[in-house]
């Protein structure tokens, strides 16, 4: 018989991978990234992945919007009107971007709450938490800066009211207000710098922090919500393969979020009020829902207290893993922290609802 070895033809993709692997050792990198295991006990509800998906949606829809958007007071409004009315599927891109922003904040906050209540921020994941909180702040920054860009009445006045609170910060208030607005009032300078921050500074910052956040998650793996990290033995649980099992679940979750986005964008497309008019103050000016609790809080307490409280609370949130020294992760074993979290969540919810109806 012919014992000659026959070279089997390989596919083009296989040959490309081989070619890359030969030079860059990609297989080992992919193996390291994908062939890990997720603890069976972990309940992530896919919230981190959903936030990541929404970021990709925001980035892609945002890039498409910048193809037509013009960031000057004279042209911004009309360019948004043009995108929404005349550009093919422009309404869809803009509506997906607007709803995506809201959903991204919802997903980000829910992700933070999941990590908090499961105690997943504790040793050795302290830095992952810190970076996660920064990611939330950057996401809120996206919301705040993006809100002005349509340059309609709601955008203009919500930004006027929103930036006004910066002026109440003691000592540096005036400087801060001028720095954010680029002058005494919301103007063309504000629009330009908000556009720059929204499309350049924040995306680059978010991408950089996100990358480290994901690498750290990969390094530590997902937390076990029942046992502190030190008590979990490496071979105690076989876990679920990250690829393809967990990724498949994530994909299903992403598809569901995509469906929600499509439904919201189709049934409730992003609107546009009258063009911004600095001389005509609307009757009811309110910020977006995610700043409503802060807005209502500012109305209830003296201005300086209202501004300084969140400024003081932010470091506490960032440094939570270093302040909470209790190693336990199960909610039943850390009742005070859980009670504090529930109370804070309740207060924010009540203030948001109150702010909405006030």
């Amino acid at each position, binding site marked *: 018989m012919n014992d000659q070895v026959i070279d089997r033809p390989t596919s083009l993709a296989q040959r490309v991978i081989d070619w890359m692997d030969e030079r860059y050792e990609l297989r080992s990198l992919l193996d390291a990234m994908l062939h890990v295991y997720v603890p069976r006990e972990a309940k992530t509800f896919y919230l981190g992945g959903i936030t990541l998906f929404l970021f990709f949606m925001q980035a892609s829809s945002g890039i498409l919007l910048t193809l037509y958007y013009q960031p000057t007071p004279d042209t911004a409004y009309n360019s948004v009107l043009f995108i929404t009315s005349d550009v093919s599927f422009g309404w869809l891109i803009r509506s997906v971007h607007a709803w995506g922003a809201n959903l991204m904040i919802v997903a980000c906050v829910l992700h933070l709450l999941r990590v908090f209540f499961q105690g997943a921020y504790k040793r050795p994941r302290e830095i992952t938490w810190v970076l996660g909180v920064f990611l939330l702040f950057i996401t809120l920054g996206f919301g705040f800066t993006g809100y002005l860009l349509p340059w309609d009445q709601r955008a203009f006045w919500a930004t006027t009211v929103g930036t006004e609170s910066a002026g109440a910060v003691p000592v540096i208030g005036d400087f801060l207000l001028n720095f954010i607005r680029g002058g005494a009032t919301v103007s063309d300078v504000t629009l330009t710098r908000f556009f720059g921050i929204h499309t350049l500074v924040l995306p680059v910052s978010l991408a950089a922090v996100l990358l480290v956040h994901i690498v750290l998650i990969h390094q530590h793996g997902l937390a076990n919500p029942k046992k502190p990290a030190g008590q979990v033995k490496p071979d105690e649980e076989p876990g679920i393969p990250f690829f393809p*099992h967990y990724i498949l679940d994530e994909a299903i979750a992403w598809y569901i979020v995509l469906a929600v986005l*499509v439904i919201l964008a189709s049934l409730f497309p992003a*609107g546009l009020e009258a063009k911004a008019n600095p001389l005509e103050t609307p009757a009811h000016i309110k910020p977006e829902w995610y700043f409503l609790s802060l807005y209502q809080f500012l109305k209830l307490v003296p201005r300086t207290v209202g501004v300084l409280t969140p400024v003081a609370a932010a470091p506490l949130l960032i440094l939570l893993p270093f302040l909470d020294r209790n190693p336990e992760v199960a909610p039943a074993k850390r009742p005070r922290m859980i009670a504090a979290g529930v109370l804070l969540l309740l207060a924010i919810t009540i203030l948001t609802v109150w702010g909405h109806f006030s």
Partner: protein
Amino acid sequence: MFARVLEKLMKQRVTWIAAFVVIAIIVPGGFAKAFSAAPPSPEQGATEVMPPSPGLTSPDLAPLSQGPLARSPDESPNNCFKCHANLPGPHGGIASKWDASVHGRAGIACADCHGGNPETDEMILAMSPEAGFIGVPPRRDIPALCGGCHSDVERMRQFNIPTDQLPKYQESVHGVKLAQGDIRVAICTDCHGSHDVLKASDPNAAVSPYNVPYLCAKCHSDEALMEPYGLPTDQLDIYEKSVHGEALLGRKDIRAPSCASCHGSHAAKPPTSDEVVNVCGKCHTATQKLYEESLHARIGDAAPKCWTCHGTHDIIKPSEDNFLHPEPLVDQPCGECHVDDTTFRMEAARFESPEDRRCDTCHHPTSWVMTQIKAMKNALVEAQEAYQAAEDAIQDAAARGMIVNDAEVLLTEAHTSIIRARAVVHTTKLTRVTELTDDAKEAAIKARDLADTKLADNLFRRRAMVVVIGIIAINIVGLIALKYQLNRHSEGS
């Protein structure tokens, strides 16, 4: 014993108050009358109707002094103010009112109107007839007293206020009646107050435009007071429901007319029929010009004026219903409108009811003019219907989240044309009305077409959404199937 008690009492302020009150009662006219800005009651007035007062035009009633006497702290003391400021009740109240008034701030003081000597702190001397004290000036003399300063060009120049109020007042119904000796009619203090005079631009002033209807109504809604003059007392109630009343009193729109805008303030008098066009035209300038182009404006006294179709105090928003009676009028006697074959006549009573302020109240149902009126009405109704249909479609599209700015621009164009067409009705020229109603219809139809396109687009979006959701659902089912397969494979291995 009695002397000691009296001496003790004399040291107390209360004694001075009591003494003041007694003197106030003794002084002719009494101070108490000065505190009331309202005119006397008819009963009181009926007994006090005075013979024609020569004082109203007499130079004898020039101001009592040629300049401020009492309020010049560096030069002379104002003992009137000092005493009154320490008195309880209304006697003290007049001091604080005067102090806050425009006169108080300008240094026009007590003695300028009441006479007396403010420089002495002896009350008997300060308020003695020898010192020129007159107490409360008689009502009939007040216009001339106020006019003494307010007609003085030199004195008023610094305040930039007119100096013709007195002659205007003398020509007004109020002034004429006062000159005839009727002191129930309004005088300066009834409207401006006496001690508490404020600038008309001050929102707290009774003569501020927002307050004028209520100010006039204080007398003109008083049935007992108006009964001798045979005047109706329901003007305020009617005015409040009118477009002007709703605008001024409801929406605080300062541009809307108050009583004084049409009747005059100092020269208050009802405008006559031939004056009405000019009175309304003060604000409705464009409409007046259009009216003057009409046939109506050329037929003199018998011509319909603004009030004929719109009323007076009860003006409501006009509509296409104002053209004709709901049911055609038949069997109207010729004498209703014609004196003879060629002469028209116009009687106000025929237009008293808003229901009768219609074109067919005058124009015969079978006349050529009536065909023009009907065509005019139909053109406006059609334009309004086209506008309404476009507005409904736009609102529907907006409620579905569609951007409707472009359609709204066209709708505004249609609305502007309808407003102009309604105004042009005053020319009574059909072609001019139809030109504008055609424009309105064209813009409204375009707006509606745009809105319909948006509604169709919205329907497409919803259908496309269902398709996309279907595709996503198929993908999800596929992934679930793949997962199931993977799990089976994992269990098998």
